[in-house]
């Protein structure tokens, strides 16, 4: 069963869900553009950008790339490794803050 029908069957789903997600992606893109268009600033801007980005990314992966219908073995193999990227982001943000502080300090001294 596992070996025979995977060459016949693929990811086949009703078209309706694709059209709904497609429309939703357009709306979300328009929303993220509006963030810039209306010049939102500060934490509101950054929060909205991240929220719209993650929603779009999630919808693309889950529905367009069919991840929500795949077995968990594949989902976890693809979703867990990128978590280390978050560690990398944390490390580099600490590092760049430090670089910025030292630059400010030494440029202020004029040396």
């Amino acid at each position, binding site marked *: 069963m596992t070996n025979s029908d995977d060459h016949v069957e*693929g990811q086949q789903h009703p078209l309706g869900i694709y059209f709904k997600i497609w429309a939703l992606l357009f709306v979300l893109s328009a929303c993220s553009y509006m963030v810039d268009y209306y010049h939102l600033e500060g934490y509101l801007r950054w929060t909205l950008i991240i929220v719209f980005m993650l929603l779009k990314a999630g919808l693309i992966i889950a529905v367009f790339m069919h991840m929500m219908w795949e077995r968990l073995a594949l989902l976890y193999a693809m979703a867990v490794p990128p978590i280390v990227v978050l560690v990398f982001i944390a490390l580099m943000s600490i590092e760049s803050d430090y*670089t910025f502080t030292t630059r400010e300090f030494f440029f202020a001294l004029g040396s």
Partner: protein
Amino acid sequence: MTPHTMSNTQAVTASKGAWANITADWSSDQRAFKNVPWGKAMMWVFLLSDTFIFSCFLISYMTVRVSTVVPWPNPSEVFALSFGGEPIPLILIAIMTFILITSSGTMVLAVNYGYRKDRAKTAILLLITAAFGATFVGMQAFEWTKLIVEEGVRPWGNPMGAAQFGSTFFMITGFHGFHVSVGVIFLVIVARKVWRGDFDNETRGFFTSRKGNYEIVETMGLYWHFVDLVWVFIFAFFYLW
């Protein structure tokens, strides 16, 4: 029975627990990814590696942007475009975003019609997707030209502010544009194969000598959606931030 009870894990976790299923799949000999053709599994692995590449680019962009003491050029103004009147902020980038999403939609339809073995519709949808991709690359070329010729942006400096703006911009969007260009070529090749009926007649491939089937359209789709996915992150972090 109701649509709400149809969840992603319905078939997978029917009898055993989620973790029991994962360990069972992973510890089974030879095939860890059940119900997934090898080509598709390998495409996922490639996309994972590509995720790390783009992550490195965006993280290095974050690092230089945070650590520079020179003000960062405002992308909203740099990428504004005027159609005879007031400049509209970021309009070209917004249009490019919509084009890429549209192409993702046509791609997903192509995959669907591929599995229905609707040769003509699949090929046409693939070609439409390729056309949108080519349009995207064309607009990117226009954007680069405008930036280089009119605004004087170079990888080592620009008149608007931090020098790192140019280097990160050309590196990140250049690498993404390269991915889109490769995707367009890939799409045209797959469309030709579909159109010719290679997947119906099980014609052997030129390079691999293997019989192809419509799963290749889905594998192609994964790559294309990934390109769209990367753009979502670039749009958020580079253009909107």
